């Protein structure tokens, strides 16, 4: 059991209220200078630092090569957050609209600690991958660019997951499955894992291995429920797998749950349609079952109880 007391966490919440680890929005140079982001202009592979001459009070510009910037301290750009959210909602076009400004902003600092370039580039890559082969050329170009930098562990896994997504879109289900299965143990990032499990579910589903698909989809609900956007997607996949497994009543319950739990999601609309179709089949099956039961009951009442061996 977790042994952190209520008192301690409450105390910490109070304490947190007093300090915000706000980002300074600064660039740190190799020689220890701290440059406010507001005072710089990006110029190709260097930054132009606007300073006020103490003696004259006039502006002067100092050019610093981007390679001399060792660290950035910058809050996560809201456009990046919005683009991520759009992807999670299955809307790559919105993500693409948002993300280019972030990629441009951090372009000179691709590998600099604190830079959001790789996160933004991966977001864009994922959005392009969601387009399938439609944006293949742009995808390939960006992919090559990303490959030139050192990605962190979770980012590398995400990169691999996007590759698997593209493989899957190209119809290479076998290699995609192998990749995803290898990637899953390499990260603990819930947002990456939730997507990987959904992709794995989709691959198994495509290969008509519905029990494995179900297991993959359910993993999201059970282990990565913190990823709210992914839950309706995973549950719809699970419901479809159950239908394919002829677990029609279970599928019905799952679809009803999607409607109730995520009423405004696109998956709720799909669930409603699939539920209508399912109920037709279930209605017929239930009637047949009832007829059979009635017949059996009738037969039983006509006969006296006996024991046979």
């Amino acid at each position, binding site marked *: 059991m*977790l042994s952190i007391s*209520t008192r301690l966490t409450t105390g910490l919440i*109070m304490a947190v209220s007093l300090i915000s680890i706000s980002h300074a929005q600064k660039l740190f140079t190799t020689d220890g200078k701290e440059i406010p982001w507001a005072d710089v202009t990006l110029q190709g592979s260097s930054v132009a630092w606007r300073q006020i001459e103490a003696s004259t009070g006039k502006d002067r510009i100092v050019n610093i090569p981007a390679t001399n910037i060792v660290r950035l301290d910058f809050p996560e750009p809201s456009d990046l957050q919005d683009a991520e959210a759009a992807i999670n909602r299955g809307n790559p076009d919105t993500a693409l609209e948002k993300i280019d400004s972030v990629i441009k902003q951090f372009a000179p600092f691709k590998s600099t600690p604190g830079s959001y370039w790789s996160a933004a580039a991966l977001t864009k890559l994922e959005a392009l991958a969601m387009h399938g082969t439609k944006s293949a050329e742009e995808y390939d170009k960006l992919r090559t660019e990303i490959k030139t930098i050192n990605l962190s562990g979770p980012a590398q896994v995400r990169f691999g997951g996007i590759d698997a997504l593209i493989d899957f879109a190209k119809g290479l289900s076998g290699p995609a499955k192998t990749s995803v299965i290898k990637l899953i143990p390499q990260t603990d990032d819930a947002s990456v894992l939730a997507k990987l499990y959904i992709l794995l579910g989709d691959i198994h589903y495509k*290969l008509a291995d519905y029990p494995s698909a179900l297991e993959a989809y359910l993993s999201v609900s059970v282990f990565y429920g913190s990823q709210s956007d992914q839950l309706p997607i995973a549950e719809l996949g699970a419901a479809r797998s159950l239908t394919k497994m002829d677990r029609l009543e279970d599928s019905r319950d*799952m679809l009803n749950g999607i409607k109730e739990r995520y009423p405004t999601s696109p998956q709720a609309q799909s669930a409603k349609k699939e539920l209508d179709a399912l109920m037709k089949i279930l209605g017929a099956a239930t009637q047949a079952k009832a007829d059979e039961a009635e017949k059996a009951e009738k037969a039983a009442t006509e006969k006296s109880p*006996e024991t*046979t061996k």
Partner: protein
Amino acid sequence: MKIRCTSLTCALLTGVAGFITFATAAPAPAPAAKSSEPPLAKNPLEFADLAKEASAAFESQDFAVAGPKLITLAKSSEALGLKEKIDEVYYMIGIANAQIKAWAPALEYLRKYETGYPTGAYLKDVAMLIGKVLFFSGDFKGSAAQFEKIRNVPELTDQVLPLLGEAYEKSDQGAEAVKVLTDFLKKGYGSTERINAALRLATLYLSVDQPEKGIEIIDKIKNSPSAADFVIIINAKAQETAIPFVESKPDLALVALQAIRRKSEVVRLQEARNVVLTNKIAEWTRARSALKGPAGAKFQPLIEEGSARLKQLQEMLETVKKDEGYDATVIYQIGRAFTKLRRYWEAELAFRTIGKSYPAFANASSAMFGQIVCLVELKKKEDALKLSKEYLKAYPKGGEVPQVSELAVTMSMEVNDFVTAKATANEILKSQPDNPSASKLALYAITCDFSLYAFKDARAGLDEYRKKWPNDAFKEEVDYRYALTFFFENNYAETIKQLSNYISTYPNGAYKSDARYRLGIVMYGEEQAAKTKANLKKNPEYKSNFRRVINEVNDVLKGDPNTLIAGELYALLGDCYDQMTAAEVTEANIDQDQETGDAYMHGAAKATNDDVLDYCMEQARTKLQAAGRWKEMRTMHEEFVKSRPTHPDRLKAIYWVCKARSREAKTLEEKNAANEYNKKFLSEQILGNINRSNTEGVEMLLEQLAQACIPKRKPKPVTPAAEPGKPAPVAVAPAPAAPDEDPFLVGSKELEKWLGGSTGKLNGTGEARLEYAKVQLLKMVPPKVDPADPKKRIDRTAEVDKLMDEMAQKVKPDDLSSTLLAFVGEHLRKRGVIEKATQCYNRLMNSFPKSDYVDFALVGLGDIAFEQKNYAEAEKNYTKAKDEMPGMKYPNALMGVAKAQFMQQKYEEVEKPLLEIVGNKEWKGELTAEALYWLGQNAFAQKKYPEAVNYYQRIFLSFGKFTDWSIKGYTEAAETFRALGEPDKAKSHLQEARDYLKKRKLEASPAMQLLKDKAAKLNISLGS
């Protein structure tokens, strides 16, 4: 005198407010600083000097000096009547004194400003500062009242609301605090301050017993980027919130539990945040050193508070790191919540994960029990049983042993595992003698004894039962079962005694008819024994007396016409008639076959269990077929179809109905009529099932229909006999089909017509089945006439392959029945369409796990893995097919296992399955040739060359008709001879192979190329 409120000062105001907030957040408020006020200014000059000093001290942030000087300045201004800009002085007094925690003077002068200057420029800031001073001086009620006054001031509201909430909270006005924080969070959770407020609000909701609202908040903030600083706290808060409500409010608890991240992720994220905070503290420390004096000193509280916070976070992190059961606890609770919500699929996965990944978890046994419950609810009884057994083995003293035991008993019985069922039942009876279900469990154990043929044990159990529960509701059943133990031991004397005893004790007993039936069987056994003893070969005149059994059985049927064992009784009658000797038949004056067949037919009609039904149907079919009683045969099956509409053998019965009807027909007209009728009847039956992929047996009827649709051969012209005196009539032939009309096309049209192929009534499954019927038709129709040479016939293999290609391309695996999945999957695999073949096989295995065709899937998947050089996976699939699902593909599974083992160099294991193939005469053919080839390969790999040669030679000697294998036999034998150092023999074998191919005019075949390649490899000239 004018004191300028410079931009520096104004900026400082905000800083001071924040500074006060920060500084007073230390655990124990420091005592108010002692101020030593300088003497009052006596004149304007002194006043000006004092103002200058106070202003300088204030601007340089030396508040300890500024505070008292400013108070003196205010007092002097009153004394001297110099009141210009005194409002600003009051405000500065408030700031400076608050900074040094001199709450009383700060408050006094701020109040003076508030009351004296209601339209003053700093009124809002003063009001805010009053609230903060009250708050940090511990007057939370006063503070709340003050903040209330300014909560709606637009530029202050975001600052005021969190403080107001906290003030209410600290003055025990939780409900008010909730209102205020809710108000504050209306604009969202997009900042650290807001996330912090949200967490406090969630805590408040819990304290006022509104967990649903608290959980709602946790759910909203869990993925907010601003929540990154709080990940470990959110986890802890979510867990603290969820666990008490898993039972009572599982839906809410689940939401909170789902917000919790796994341990490794939390540790990783929190460590990263701690690094950020550490960097911040270092930054503040550098700033403190860089800025001399009070300006630098303002960073000290930040450093202290930051360090305190870092320490707390590190402690939390360490606690999480040390908690071995962190993830398991969460997953276990998630499993419980899902179970309570009846979402058993998710719950099962959660509990299974505990068993698999956290076996040492404190609640692992409860998790396993939870999983068992889920499996039962999901109707996965075999899995539930298996796990129950594991539970009892792993946790013999577990808290759920009684429930698991009873489940294990009943489920074991359901899957015919009576050994476990009995052992489990006895274990419970032993360990829990007062169990309320003890008598029931004892009866279970006795039932198991019957099923295990342990009749002595059963008798002992029944004796024990009689002692313990002498007069309970099961007394009659116990007595009857006791008698039956002798029956099943073939102790006829005791059986007669005990059953007679039962009948006399319970003259109207529930088992009376059954007892008499058993006695009938004893009598039948006696007659059989006597007949055997009489030896009919030596004594053909021997007259049996089965009629005494027949009379007894008939008497039972007469007295109890609705008995549930009528099927058994008629089956016994059939057996008796069947076993009568000729002398008894003559004396009885009966038609033995007729009576026997009739009895079995009655038995089939009355049977209430499938064993009796199958027995009677099979026996009746044999008798009726032998006697040519096709009408009765048809009627019996028609009755079956009618009375058992959901029986799995229903379609098989339809097959027999049609077959019988065809055989009933004698004349051509009758045959044609029967054929037409069958087409109609079959199509009706097929159409009722054709769209349902899970109905087995439809394909059998489709084949029958396809056969019925083959155009019949044109009868020879019939010339009626000439009537005397009249000219001979002209020969009349039926209207012939167009001479070039392909019977397949004619039959296809018929199939389309009967199955409504173009009417839109068929779904994907139906369409696929129609295609299948056409393929079967194509396989059955005679070869095509060669248009170039009408005497020649063209083999239809290529046509069949083409049609199969079209079908396989068109159909969707999800639409296919088990038969079609096997059929299509195999075709696709052979054609190299691997992904779709895999889809077919996976669906076959998963959707039709009990189908007779499952081994097609396993062997097919094995073949795919083998072709992809994944030999371990291939072996796994082949082995499963061989050991767990032996069926039509059993020989292929054997071959697959051997090949996969060979490729993994498991040479010792390869021979056994191959020898099983070679030794089975029923499989003799190409598969045997292949097995010999691999036996040769296996021997060669182990350098057992003479043995290898022997196997290779057997291929072309015994299976010469299989060209490819024969050539492989020759070439491999040649290579082996080369290894043996006998090049002449190597050469002679290759030349013999050359002659073999020449003789068959196969010089241009791939086999010849193989031969040439081998010759080149061995550097042997084939000659001409």
